[in-house]
């Protein structure tokens, strides 16, 4: 493989190159380290390049591969993690100035698992400060600056996994780990034109990850293809004694099945949204039409998803960062609106928070009863393309007030979702197609998304090469 193609190769292709000895783990590590340092700053995508660790891990991988000890499909493959995952020997900044020098001398479970699979950590990637938990309303909300999509750096990469989205899209890491409390994996996937999986809550250990809302945080893979994401998810899923919310289930990518998928399209999913986003969504369903039985205008149970989410993220978020409020370091945050975030949540009563947790249980059951009528729901991942980085989100694309409310409710109850690129819209910015299913139905989501990528080439498109 010509080395220029490493940047946009899939994990399967990189693994094949390693096994066939057309490259080495050290050569791959050096290749991506150079790209991280040269290209990463253009998109504010990188916090720390983990050069020493990367070269040590790559050298070990090369020794093992030479000895015929093959750890699996991630052996020798470089990757990055959102900088909310603890890693030994490097700062873990949570994207926030007050934590810029924070050292956590242990690896998060996900980092450990990737290391055990032979993957090579090359970078800690940028993120919206504190994963957006303080209520940012515009893109410049990280000490690394606004995340920029490689498709047009005047536009946002999405958040809060801004660095993982931009880094995968720009070909500066082959895959990355992001996190989602409510939209933080799927949104950057859509805005950066990459693939991602938001796993079921508990499928992937949160141990060693910054907490925003303990009962809603999820970690998941972001990559060039959904197959790449599935390969990574197989490695990171599973029970962890250090995370009591983790479940004793793994994930295995299943082979493609021949049956049709029953798809619910929520009412209003493509109404009053950007026309290009709507057109790409319908075209994507058309690509799969021989495999789909589509049920239009389905309606989620009428329950207070927003109220529950607001109460849980507010109360858990203010508690998770109570030290920051107490000592006043919150004033050091980048986004002015984040400096006031959290204070209003001090007024949440314990009774109301507990009420939200009690309401969520029947909400889970009602949404599961609804989702079991279908194999999955399909929606445009976001209702518009990325926002300009110099405008508040509210003012970015006025007039598009439609779309279906799926990201919010499905995050509140913790069911899985995927996003894959499905075309381009305004300003030639990417758009995303999202599928959502019942808890632990990731394999079903991956199967259909993989079929879609087998029939389209959106995931192979490369952003324009920037002028130096």
């Amino acid at each position, binding site marked *: 493989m010509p080395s220029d193609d490493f940047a946009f190769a899939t994990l399967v292709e990189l693994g094949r190159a390693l096994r066939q000895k057309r490259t080495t783990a050290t050569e791959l590590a050096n290749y991506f380290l150079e790209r991280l340092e040269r290209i990463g700053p253009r998109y504010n995508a990188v916090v720390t390049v983990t050069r020493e660790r990367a070269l040590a891990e790559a050298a070990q991988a090369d020794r093992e591969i030479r000895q015929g000890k093959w750890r699996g499909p991630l052996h020798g493959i470089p990757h990055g993690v959102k900088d909310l995952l603890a890693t030994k020997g490097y700062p873990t900044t949570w994207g926030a100035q007050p934590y810029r020098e924070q050292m956590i001398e242990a690896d998060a479970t996900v980092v450990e698992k990737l290391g055990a699979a032979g993957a090579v950590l090359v970078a800690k990637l940028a993120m919206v400060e504190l994963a*957006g938990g303080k*209520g940012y309303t515009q893109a410049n909300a990280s000490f690394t600056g606004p995340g920029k999509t490689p498709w047009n750096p005047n536009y946002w990469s999405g958040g809060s996994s801004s660095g993982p989205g931009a880094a995968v899209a720009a070909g500066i890491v082959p895959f990355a780990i992001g996190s989602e409390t409510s939209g933080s994996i799927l949104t950057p996937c859509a805005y950066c034109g990459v693939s991602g999986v938001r796993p079921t809550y508990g499928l992937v250990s949160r141990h060693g990850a910054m907490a925003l809302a303990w009962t809603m945080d999820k970690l998941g893979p972001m990559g060039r293809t959904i197959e790449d994401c599935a390969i990574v998810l197989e490695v990171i899923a599973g029970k962890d004694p250090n995370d009591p919310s983790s479940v004793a289930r793994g994930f295995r990518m299943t082979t493609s099945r021949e049956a049709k998928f029953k798809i619910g399209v929520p009412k209003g999913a493509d109404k009053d949204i950007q026309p290009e986003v709507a057109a790409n969504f319908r075209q994507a369903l058309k690509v799969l039409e021989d495999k789909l039985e589509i049920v239009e205008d389905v309606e989620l149970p009428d329950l207070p998803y927003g*109220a529950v989410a607001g109460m849980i*993220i507010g109360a858990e978020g203010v508690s998770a960062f109570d030290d920051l409020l107490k000592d006043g370091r919150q004033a050091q945050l980048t986004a002015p609106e984040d400096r*006031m975030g959290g204070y209003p949540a*001090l007024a949440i009563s314990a009774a109301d928070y507990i009420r939200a947790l*009690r309401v969520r249980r029947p909400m889970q059951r009602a949404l599961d009863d609804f989702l079991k009528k279908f194999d999955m729901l399909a929606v445009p991942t976001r209702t518009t393309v990325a926002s300009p980085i110099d405008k508040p989100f509210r003012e970015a*694309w006025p007039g598009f007030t439609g779309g*279906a409310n799926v990201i919010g409710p499905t995050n509140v109850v913790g069911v899985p979702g995927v996003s894959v690129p499905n075309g381009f819209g305004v300003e030639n910015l990417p758009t995303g197609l999202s599928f959502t299913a019942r808890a632990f139905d990731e394999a079903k989501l991956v199967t259909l998304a993989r079929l879609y990528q087998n029939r389209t080439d959106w995931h192979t498109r490369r952003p324009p090469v920037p002028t130096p």
Partner: protein
Amino acid sequence: MEISRREFAERLALVAAAPWFLEDFKPPPQQQQTQEPSALAKALAETVRLRYPDRFTAEDLITITRSIDTRLRQIERLYETTLTNADEPDFVYSVYRGAD
């Protein structure tokens, strides 16, 4: 697109919950007019000010009061869902016993 008062309240709640909901839940412009915050919101904002008396400008306190007011409007919907005494929160407390 016309939305009901109830849907509008839900959208407001989601906006307050997290900004990444914004694109799906932007209230129509005619419904974005600011209302005078409730007396309860003002009182609760005062408790925040008393907790950190030296931190806030008058403008900050307006922002905090409005945010509390928005959240209070969410609470109404939380209590519309019927629950019984037996409906527990969705976490399970488990007892701990360390090594002997």
